[in-house]
């Protein structure tokens, strides 16, 4: 046989071997990276428990990893992951909850898309965040009870960003609340709460009814979820990352939606300072301001 023919045979055999290896290593269904993120949630749950919110567990809600075309849904029962595949319930890049019959499911992007966003947080922390929304709505019907006359998050944020007076007082609220995030100083929580409530009361007079309802709702729903997420990140990544990602800029006013996340998180931290047990009886039936006021009576 000619040298050239032998060379060609070897070349094509190599190709056949590579193609076989390529098919053999192709991941079908839920990818390993996504599975690892969910396993991290399972591990974290063992250590973090319900984070003080009675009955809360991210493992109680089905979690869908979505690539925009397909959802890979994990149902965690009796220590086992049952994985199913379905058409994506949301298009695009989504971190949300999905009402499926009587229950809420968590929908997060697949890991491959998540890391492409350059986000600091682990995807597992996002699962905690979204599953906390599932908890708020499954156990307390938060959205159903609160947001009937409300504005969308973006519309509300735009209104406040454009109004110098409302904006300036919100900046002051954040500044005062920011004391609870100052790791260098000891905070007088009661004094901080009283000062904060004085500003909040003055600012409430400027808000329309729909603005007030909406703001209370987003601070409560997103703020408390952000608080839960920050606790998970602190546990997973340590104090330095936690401080850098959650505390450093929390008290700075940011245009857009993120200020409600930070404001609500700081309110939860203030409540921790007033009474670490505040969560144990909280039923998501009033605003965080109301809870703070109750502890200052």
């Amino acid at each position, binding site marked *: 046989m000619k040298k050239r023919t032998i060379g060609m045979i070897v*070349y094509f055999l190599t*190709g056949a071997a590579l193609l076989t290896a390529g098919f053999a290593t*192709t991941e079908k269904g839920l990818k390993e990276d996504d599975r690892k993120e969910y396993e991290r949630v399972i591990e974290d749950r063992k250590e973090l428990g319900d984070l003080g919110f009675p009955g809360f567990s991210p493992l109680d809600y089905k979690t869908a990893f979505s690539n925009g075309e397909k959802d890979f849904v994990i149902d965690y029962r009796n220590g086992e992951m049952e994985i199913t595949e379905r058409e994506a319930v949301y298009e695009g890049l989504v971190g949300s909850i999905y009402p499926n019959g009587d229950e809420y499911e968590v929908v997060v992007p697949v890991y491959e898309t998540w890391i492409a966003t350059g986000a600091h947080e682990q995807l597992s922390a996002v699962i905690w965040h979204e599953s906390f929304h599932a908890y708020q709505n499954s156990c307390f019907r938060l959205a159903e009870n609160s947001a009937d006359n409300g504005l969308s998050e973006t519309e509300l944020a735009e209104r406040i960003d454009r109004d110098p007076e409302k904006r300036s007082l919100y900046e002051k609220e954040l500044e005062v609340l920011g004391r609870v995030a100052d790791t260098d100083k000891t905070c007088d929580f009661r004094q901080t709460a009283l000062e904060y409530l004085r500003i909040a009361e003055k600012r409430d007079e400027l808000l329309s009814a729909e603005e007030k309802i909406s703001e209370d709702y987003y601070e409560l729903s997103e703020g408390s979820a952000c608080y839960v997420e920050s606790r998970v990140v602190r546990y997973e990544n340590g104090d330095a990352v936690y401080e850098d990602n959650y505390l450093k800029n929390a008290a700075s006013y940011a245009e857009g939606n993120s200020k409600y996340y930070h404001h609500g998180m700081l309110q939860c931290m203030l409540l921790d300072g007033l009474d670490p047990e505040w969560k144990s009886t909280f039923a998501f039936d009033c605003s965080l301001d109301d809870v703070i006021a109750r502890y200052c009576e």
Partner: protein
Amino acid sequence: MEISLNVIKEKIRKKMLYITTVLGVLVVMIFSSDMGSLTIGGRQIKDYYVLIPILIHVVNFLSGAIALAMSLTTVPNEYERRTSHLIWSRGISQSRYHMSLAIGNVAVSWISGLILYATMAVFAVVNGYSGMLGRIAAAALLMLLYTAIISMLASALSIIFPTIVSGVIMIILFAGGAFRNILILLAAVLTGAGGTIMKRVIRLFPDLAGLSRQGGNLAQGNPVDVHVIIMGMIVVWIAGIGILFFRRKEA
């Protein structure tokens, strides 16, 4: 072998290798030293262990760009100078001739890529991370695959297309592959038919970003996705088929 060696010698003689590599070394130096500060999401990255996967992305991209610049013109230049005719007169087949030129291109790309990795290794030692040298060497193996993909594809396309056409196709393939993550994100954000089409188009790009990510995983001692490496090797193999079977009209 002789043809491949001639390609290497020519690139050295024309100083192409020096110029591109010196530019690359400068960039690596800037990223690795205090001269440049890398800030991501408002945070300064100073820890070399954290910096190394990012550096690997940068160095691989530079190596790929050098491989592209040096591989695109080799075949057209040979035909323009009619060196090819001297080869035919010796009874060497077009397939063998093209493959030898492509191997020369790959070798030159590897030399410049390895110089960039050596620079990175020096800075790892300077920053007190000499323990990472073995892992950086392992990551360099993936750079060899990264540059081989670019070099082989550029060599194959330059056989059948004019330099300008193969250049444009290669820049699209290279940019699409190196920034595949961004395209994936864009496809995820897009809804409707646009998103579906984009998801299909992305599959046509070699996963160069994935290879760099695996290099970063190797350097940090994290698990590596073998599938990405195998797919990279398949791209080299497919480009090899092109080199073996594409024919030049002038020949």
